[in-house]
C-alpha cells in the first residue's frame, strides 16, 4: 500500500503541478491540489491507471485530507 501511495503522490505532483512537500496526510486534498470540479476527472484517471481502482463521486464525499483519501483508496483496493 505504501508503494501505491508513493506512486500516487508522484503522479499528483506531476499532474497538478504542486510541490511534493505540500502533500502531507493532514493537508486538504482539494485545496492542496487546487481542484475545481472538472479536475476530478484527471484525478480519477490518474488513480485508476496506478491502482486499477475507479473512484466515483460518492467516494469523494467523505474525503477531506490526504489521509482520508489514502484510506478510501486502501479500502477500495482491498474490495477489488
Amino acid at each position: 500500500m505504501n508503494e501505491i501511495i508513493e506512486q500516487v503522490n508522484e503522479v499528483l505532483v506531476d499532474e497538478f503541478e504542486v510541490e511534493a512537500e505540500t502533500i502531507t496526510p493532514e493537508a486538504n486534498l482539494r485545496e492542496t491540489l487546487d481542484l475545481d470540479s472538472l479536475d476530478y476527472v484527471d484525478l480519477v484517471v490518474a488513480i485508476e491507471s496506478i491502482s486499477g481502482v475507479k473512484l466515483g463521486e460518492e467516494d469523494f464525499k467523505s474525503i477531506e485530507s490526504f489521509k482520508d483519501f489514502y484510506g478510501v483508496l486502501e479500502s477500495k483496493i482491498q474490495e477489488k
Partner: protein
Amino acid sequence: MALKYALITGGSRGIGRAVCEVLAENTDYGIIINYSSNKEAALETKKLVEAHGNQAEIMAFDVADKKAVDDSLNAWQERNPDAWIEVLVNNAGITKDGLFMWMKEEDWSSVVNTSLNGFYNLSQFVIQKMLRKRYGRIVNMVSVSGVKGTAGQVNYSAAKGAVVAATKALGQEVAKRNITVNAVAPGFIKTDMTEEINEKEMAKLVPANRFGEAREVADLVAFLTSKKASYITGEVININGGIYS
C-alpha cells in the same frame, strides 16, 4: 491511422451524411458514421468520406440504447487505444408526428429517448476524454420545433427543446476546458424526414421561399466544430430561411 475522430450519429443519410462529407472535405478527422438500420446508406456515406482521403468507419447502434452505445464505443476504443473523439455531432433523430390528444405513449417516449437520451448516452461517453484532452466540440442537431414549438410535434418539440437547455447547461459546465457545446436548429431542409411535406406549398411560408439544403446545415456544423468557433458555446443557431428567429 487517424488519431482524432469525429462521430456523427445518424450519419448515413440526410443532414448527417452531409456533415460527414463536409467534415471530410475540410478536416483530417477520421469519420465515424453511426447508423441504426440502413447499412447500405451508411456504406454509401463511407465511400463519400473516403473519396476525400479521410479514414471512415460505420458503427451500428441505436443512440437511445445506453448499453449498445457503451459497448460499441468501448470496443472501438479497444481497437484504437490511442485515438479519441474530438468532435461529436448528435444528429440522430426521429419523428412520430400526430395530435397530442391522440399521441400514444410509445410515440412520445421513442422520440424523447432518441433525441434527449441519445444526447446523454453519447455526450456522457465522449466528454470524459474531451475533459482529459482539454479540447472538444459537441454539436447537437435540434430543430425550429425545439425553439418555437410546432403543432402536431409536441413530442419532437419537447425532446429538441430539452436538448437546447442541455446544450446551454453543459456548455457552461465544460467551457473552462476548451470544450464547446452548441446546437443547430434547422427549419425545413430537404431530407427524407421532410419528404412527405409538400415543398411547393410550405416554401411559401418561408421568407427565403425555399427549403434549405442539407449541405447548408452541414457547413454551419463544420464551422461550429472548427477552431474558428472557439468562443461560441451554449448557443443555439437557427438555420431556417427566416421562418423563425
